[in-house]
């Protein structure tokens, strides 16, 4: 069908997002019709899949029938979301993987595998029964490939003034907030978009638990997992329990402390953008392992599979899983034994374990939980339960790790954590040929401060410096406590000159801060800093040593100043980007 040239110009503009409404409308109308037709054809396709599956399960020989079934499932996986059925795509993709694995295995399908396939078929059928999304929206959520960071926030709040204020604050921090004044409009919008979080008034619509009931209704309907954050004037247990029952992830009292709220919202959206979770699947049934891996990878979780315990510890050490999915019976080895090995192994003792088993014997469950397990999932496994169980445990593990990595006094990274980041950043900056500046800070005459004013006051000085650095430095800069009164700052993608300016500004400000002694008198404290840069330095050891020497030079030259490693300085002045440090050994002291 040929188009007029004029029509093509409009259309090309459309393709470049300058969308004339009439043309889009025509297209969307056609799309709606296509979606409807696809939707109408779904039951037929699904019964074809079910028939094919039963034929296969009953008679493993009938390969032609299965291949045909597989073809239908494959097409559903590839087309569902295009026609407004993202969940159909998702479950079909998982089912496709399981069927391929079953087809590839030499032995007959086991009861357990058959049950798993039926569970997936049911998920698929349920997903198909949900009305398709309207043509304007397209969502792949749950179908993998969610690389985009979700910064949509919904606010469900009946008081227009508070809603507006909240929206403004969130928008200021780069979120895109939408306000809904009642449950119905919120519900409608949630059917089309999945925001990173929904901030909901406990008393939405002026009703005692209006927000709770709205959330429960959405949870009952929604295929998607909504992240609820409740905002409440009430602080009683009943209110908090009701919010929990509605699936709340956080509970904030009004008037809102916006900083705390932002922090929580940040952690919720971070899950999307941070490193994917890593899960090790230990399962001797290859098809079941494949199923679990497919399911998790659809949710952007990285997986590794292990079918026998022989190389278990090696894989744990190489892959560094954040959670282990463990079959209860692995040939002659018990999953619980492996979990106990982890529990007694230094460094892995906090690694969460979820057992997978067909056992419905509660005694075995309790015993397994007693022996190093965190949870139990019974086969056949519901894919959504699997993803949720993994998500909640890894998230908690990461939060714990975060706490473990913080210095208790100053709240910045502790020695071990910051050194880990040094190693990581040096590697990354070398690989990407980015500059990396490192600053070593040491408070001047700190011992006299402690001796004169006591340790409590000294601690407050350390806290003040930690806080100031967190506030004054960029988000990408990393601050850690290196030793007693020594701090380490990493400034990625920053040359020595910029780093000097930044650190010197902090030095200048800190020197002006008045600290209060126990007797109410005021005193001031300064620090000295040494800077080094990569390049010219090319390893962690060199960088740390050069910064340390520069710090020594700063101290030597009279303290309260920032000094640069001569080699880094020279390289910057000559614009040299090599590791040759001909001026090494020079001193500006």
């Amino acid at each position: 069908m040929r188009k007029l040239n004029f029509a093509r110009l409009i259309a090309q503009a459309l393709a470049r997002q300058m969308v004339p409404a009439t043309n889009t409308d025509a297209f969307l109308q056609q799309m709606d019709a296509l979606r409807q037709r696809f939707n109408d054809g779904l039951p037929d396709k699904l019964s074809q899949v079910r028939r094919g599956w039963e034929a296969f399960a009953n008679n493993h020989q009938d390969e032609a029938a299965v291949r045909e079934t597989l073809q239908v499932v494959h097409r559903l996986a590839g087309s569902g979301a295009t026609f407004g059925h993202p969940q159909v795509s998702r479950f079909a993709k998982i089912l496709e993987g399981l069927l391929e694995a079953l087809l590839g295995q030499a032995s007959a399908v086991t009861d357990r595998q058959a049950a798993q396939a039926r569970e997936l078929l049911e998920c698929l059928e349920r997903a198909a029964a949900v009305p398709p999304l309207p043509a304007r929206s397209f969502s792949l959520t749950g179908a993998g490939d969610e690389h985009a960071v979700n910064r949509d926030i919904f606010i469900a709040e009946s008081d227009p003034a508070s809603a507006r204020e909240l929206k403004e604050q969130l928008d200021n921090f780069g979120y895109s907030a939408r306000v809904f004044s009642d449950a119905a409009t919120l519900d409608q919008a949630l059917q089309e978009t999945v925001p990173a979080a929904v901030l909901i008034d406990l008393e939405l619509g002026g009703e005692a638990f209006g927000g709770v009931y709205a959330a429960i209704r959405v949870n009952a309907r929604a295929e998607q997992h909504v992240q609820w954050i409740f905002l409440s004037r009430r602080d009683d247990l009943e209110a908090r329990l009701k919010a929990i029952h509605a699936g709340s992830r956080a509970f904030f009292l009004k008037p809102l402390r916006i900083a705390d709220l932002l922090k929580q919202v940040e952690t919720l959206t971070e899950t999307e953008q941070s490193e994917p979770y890593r899960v090790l699947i230990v399962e001797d049934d290859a098809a079941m392992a494949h199923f679990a891996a497919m399911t998790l990878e659809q949710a952007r979780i990285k997986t590794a599979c292990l079918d026998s315990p022989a190389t278990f510890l090696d894989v744990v050490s190489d892959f560094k899983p954040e959670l282990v999915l463990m079959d209860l019976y692995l040939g002659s080895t018990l999953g619980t034994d492996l979990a106990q090995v982890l529990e007694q192994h230094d460094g892995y003792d906090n690694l969460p374990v979820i057992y997978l088993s067909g056992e419905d014997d509660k005694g075995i469950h309790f015993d397994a939980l007693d022996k190093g397990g965190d949870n139990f999932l019974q086969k056949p496994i519901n894919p959504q339960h699997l993803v949720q169980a993994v998500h909640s445990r890894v998230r908690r593990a990461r939060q714990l790790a975060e706490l473990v990595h913080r210095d208790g006094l100053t709240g910045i990274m502790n020695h071990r954590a910051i050194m880990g980041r040094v190693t990581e950043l040096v590697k990354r900056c070398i690989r990407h040929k980015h500059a990396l500046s490192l600053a070593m800070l040491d408070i001047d005459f700190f011992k006299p401060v402690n001796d004169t004013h006591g340790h409590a006051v000294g601690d407050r000085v350390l806290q003040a410096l930690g806080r100031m650095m967190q506030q004054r430095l960029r988000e990408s800069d990393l601050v850690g406590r290196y030793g007693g009164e020594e701090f380490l700052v990493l400034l990625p993608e920053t040359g020595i000159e910029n780093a000097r300016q930044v650190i010197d500004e902090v030095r200048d400000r800190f020197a002006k801060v008045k600290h209060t002694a126990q007797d109410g008198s005021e005193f001031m404290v300064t620090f000295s800093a040494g800077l080094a840069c990569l390049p010219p330095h090319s390893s962690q050891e060199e960088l740390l040593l050069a910064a340390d020497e520069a710090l020594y030079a700063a101290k030597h030259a009279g303290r309260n100043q920032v000094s640069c490693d001569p080699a880094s300085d020279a390289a910057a002045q000559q614009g040299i980007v090599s590791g040759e440090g001909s001026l090494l050994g020079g001193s500006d002291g």
Partner: protein
Amino acid sequence: MAELNRILLVDDEPDIQEVARTALEIVGGFTVITAGSGEQALELALSEQFDLVLLDVMMPDMDGPQVLARLKQNAKTRDLPVVFLTAKVQSHEVQEYLRLGAADVLSKPFDPMALPADVRRIWENALAAD
């Protein structure tokens, strides 16, 4: 300057064929010729003129990679940019398609509204790479 105009769309699934064709025609303004099988696609590609081929991977009889190999063997179609449109997009699969000479890979399920712009972007890149 060269224009992207004629697209050969190859997919054995009628639903997908239709939604992709509608999007490419109405939103993209391209001329779209469709083929429902690998054989038909080859026949069309060799007898008519196209600017780009959108090719499904999993098709009975002759699959996408086989079609691509045949196109690469023929002088007339050797330089025709071929884009796979497929649900098989694990990284090793994508690498394999690119090794075979595909210009790029678009994943299924796709967003119909975004498809024309994606196709144009790939076509422009392929042109720039020449």
